[in-house]
């Protein structure tokens, strides 16, 4: 057993907050750099909020011969790797009445009616939860079994503590089971590479200890569960499932295909959580820098095959972010309700997100796999919870996909639909990953998306 490199013996990443592509290249996994092993298929979500200005976002032209609008112009270098998807509706979100931001976020990835009955401030459902699993978690249940983490949820400013939960969370294992993203790159790094400094023998010893502890903890869960009511048992059973998943991680062994990268520079010391206009925010340009660090870690996790299902949540629904980095002083959500004054600013924000998406695509393309790249073996989905933020519309949604899903998805296309339920897209996603599905989410909207694959 070779002793893996001690973290401190490795070169530090590039100075400053951003890790950037040089960091990634230096840290490329051994296997990914050369091994021809059949590449696994991955799924990712990149979420930004508050809708788009349709005339700036919508391409012009035909399915294969199209011109990108200003909002998506940064993706021009990647136009052959993307599918622009317009005209799907989150129709399930019109089956019930609640705060429309709650509905938009709860339905975005679940395509299912949310649960809950107590209405609180600003009409938020204060005892709410999703009606079913989100598409990322549904896929993780199927393709996440062979990696350290079934899924990896990353955030940038995703945990705004004075908003209510339904607008904060987008990813759910099921009702009552939101998957909390990590907003701190240091925490993410520790989660991915936490055991990195130990020798192989030390790791084996640690794993034997953990296994005996976790076995005993599970026995306590079993004993306690027998005394509880139905609802509490469900809750504790989810916890026990996560513990069993830790045991599964131990079964995978301590070795990773990657050498332990140097820790990302201490972004957390650069974080600046501020409160502006009464709302928590990210100030002094830390927002883009955290996002970049998280995208780098996302690529690293995928390249090292530590997880095959990832998501990056830039903000909550009804984003409270003030985009200082663009010289825009208004809060994203507030501006989205005043197109007369701010439509140019809103397009500028959406264009900026497209630049970040383009950065992520470049990073994914920078990881060679077999004859292609990591992006070829991925399906990356960029949803928005709204189409027109100013009226909270969830119809005619602006969706974007990238990656070939292992050669199954023909990219370089602009697909326009006329109100198909977004359930059908997710059913098609499942099929792309080998999960037979006639539908997803609310059974009232069955089927897969015609003309997609």
């Amino acid at each position: 057993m070779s002793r893996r490199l001690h973290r401190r013996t490795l070169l530090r990443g590039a100075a400053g907050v951003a890790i950037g592509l040089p960091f990634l290249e230096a840290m490329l996994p051994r296997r990914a750099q050369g091994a021809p092993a059949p590449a696994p298929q991955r799924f990712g979500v990149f979420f930004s909020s508050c809708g788009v200005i349709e005339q700036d976002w919508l391409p012009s032209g035909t399915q294969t011969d199209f011109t990108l609008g200003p909002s998506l112009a940064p993706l021009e270098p990647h136009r052959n790797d993307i599918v622009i998807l317009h005209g799907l509706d989150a129709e399930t979100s019109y089956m019930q009445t609640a705060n429309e931001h709650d509905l938009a976020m709860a339905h975005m990835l679940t395509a299912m009616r949310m649960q809950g009955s107590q209405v609180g401030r600003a009409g938020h459902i204060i005892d709410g939860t999703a009606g079913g699993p989100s598409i990322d978690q549904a896929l993780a249940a199927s393709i996440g079994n062979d990696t350290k983490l079934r899924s990896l949820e990353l955030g940038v400013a995703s945990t705004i503590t004075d908003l209510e939960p339904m607008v904060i969370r987008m990813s759910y294992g099921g009702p009552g089971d939101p998957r909390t993203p990590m907003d701190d790159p240091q925490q993410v790094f520790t989660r991915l590479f936490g055991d990195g400094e130990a020798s192989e023998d030390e790791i084996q010893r640690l794993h034997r200890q953990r296994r005996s502890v976790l076995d005993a903890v599970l026995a306590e869960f079993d004993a306690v569960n027998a005394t509880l009511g139905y609802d509490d048992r469900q809750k504790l059973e989810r916890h026990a499932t996560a513990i069993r998943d830790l045991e599964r991680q131990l079964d995978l062994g301590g070795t990773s295909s990657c050498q332990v990268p140097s820790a990302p520079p201490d972004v957390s010391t650069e974080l600046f959580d501020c409160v502006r206009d009464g709302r928590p925010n990210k100030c002094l340009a830390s927002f883009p820098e955290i996002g970049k660090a998280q995208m780098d870690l996302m690529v690293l996790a995928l390249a090292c095959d530590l997880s095959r299902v990832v998501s990056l949540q830039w903000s909550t629904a009804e984003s409270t972010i003030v985009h200082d980095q663009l010289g825009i002083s208004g809060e994203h959500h507030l501006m989205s309700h005043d197109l007369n004054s701010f439509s140019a600013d809103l397009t500028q924000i959406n264009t900026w997100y497209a630049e970040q998406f383009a950065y992520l695509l470049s990073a994914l393309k920078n990881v060679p796999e077999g004859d292609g790249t990591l992006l070829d073996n991925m399906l990356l989905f960029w949803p928005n919870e709204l189409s027109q933020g100013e009226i909270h519309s969830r119809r005619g949604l602006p969706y974007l996909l990238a990656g070939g899903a292992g050669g199954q998805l023909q990219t370089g296309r602009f697909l326009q639909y006329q109100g198909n339920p977004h359930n059908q897209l997710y059913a098609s996603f499942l099929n792309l990953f080998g999960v037979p599905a006639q539908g997803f989410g609310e059974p009232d909207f069955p089927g897969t998306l015609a003309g997609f694959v």
Partner: protein
Amino acid sequence: MARLIGVCGLVAAVAGSLGCTGATDAVSGYPVGSGAENTSVNGSGGAAGPTDGSATSGVTGVTGVTGVGGANTGGVQSTGTTGAAGTVNLPEEPTAAAVRRLTHVEYNNTVADLLEDTSAPADQFTADIAQNGFTNNAAALTVSPSLVEQYMSAAEDLSRAATVDLVGLLGCDPASSGEQACIEAFIQDFGQRAWRRPLSEAERTRLLGVFTTARAEFELDVSVQLVLQVVLQSPQFIYLLEPATPGALPGSVEPLDGWQLATRLSYFLLGSTPDDSLMTAAETGALSTPEQVATEARRLLTLARARERIGLFFTEWLYLRNVDRMVKDPTLFPDYDLTLGPLLRQQLELFAQAVILDQGGSAVDLLTAPYTFISPELAPIYGVTAPSTEGFMRVDLDPSRRAGLLTHAGLLASLAKADQTDPVHRGKFVRERLLCETVPPPPPDANITPPAITPGSTTRERFAQHQSEPVCAGCHTLMDPIGLGFEHYDAVGQWRDLDGGLPVDATGTIEGSDVAGPFDGAIELSGKLAQSRQVMNCLAETWFRFALGRSVAPGDDPGLRALGDRFANTGFNMRELLVEVTLSRAFRHRLVPDPNTSAFGQEGQ
């Protein structure tokens, strides 16, 4: 839009009816009982809003408006309590209380009290979020796989640190007393403290088995570490469990046992594990009567952790975390910098703690007392002479300008924009936090960006459209005329006489409620609110939510009415309110859940 105006109209109507004596049942609108109202939000829409209006207001204003000043409560209508012991002649049912995990704050406190480890490992956990304002709400305390990993790491670190002084931890020396006997004693003693009740024989056997198996391969200290890790990752530690008596009928109500009650008391009032005295009280059956519970509650309120807990309650209730890192426009407020935020928050906590714990506990004082605690840094904001020493000192304030919670600069500044005041959110704050009403969100097509500051205009003028446009006025009438009462306090909470060069007009009106009517300025407004039974009932309801770690459910209505009355009987003493909450039937009882059916009518909530 029509729906929203309709909702606001209804809120106003409901609020208006609250002043009417004897409106109890009509206002509540709920049948007594539990569970039946947990309908889904699905279906033929629109019902949620109106239900909400009565749900949040239903417990308020149920008795006539009376003076609440001082201890004179002779005129308060009682619904039939028999004093602090709280035998209530109303049907009052505990509703299903979900098992909840420790909050991160509680986790840190608990390991500090249990292991004398103040490393605060939960600060490294992914942050808790609040639901309905509070982080201890069971519905918000979900567990993601990432948190399970963090629990494991924390348990490993804590166990390693704890075994540095192994003999001290074990309470016996394995070398002299024998390893087996020592470990058995440790498991019994530490297990009981960590799991907040005596361990069953099966539990002791299992933990001893962990030790024995580990000891066959690992060193003594490592083997103890593994036992500790099991204890700290088990549900008996991470969750506040209240298993029903075996054989108890689902749907029936039974009293908590002493250990469970001790645990509720401790996590409500201290945010931590029961101390030795409380454990002894549980063990000796000394929590059997309301008098005994009250005695323990009053004792707990003298402890340092109770002071912290009250600070946390105010931080969460009033969203004071937002005060910590407020950014203000540096050109307009060159003297404001980020170091002031935490001090402004601390000031609010100190004031609340002093009123409740040190100055008699009057809720009227909370809203009207003309003093606060000032540090040298904060003196300029209040226009007072800076204390000559570092830290906070109690200072009397000009009672015509500052009196009570609502005139504290931190609160006013957090309810303001970076460059101007925010009458909408200041008014909404009073509606939601003090009157326990909800105001619906603006319709999506409303322009909700604050009007730009124009020279020579006042904030009041810039927000005039909210009153002149019928579409806006439906809801804004509930908020703006209250919020404009705070116009003497600028965006950092400093007193001002001029706004945009023009004299400040701080007159306002409360629409609805039992103290409806005009007022001039925040001092008068605070005085009115201090006379409001609706505000007092709201305080009681809010502490009740915090104590139970859940939202209010329809079955709570009778209990909340009784609690409001008992609060009145104390002369609206906040400290006694906390005691009264622990005496409520909901706090001391639990509903036996059904092992096979969800209480939420749907699978898996």
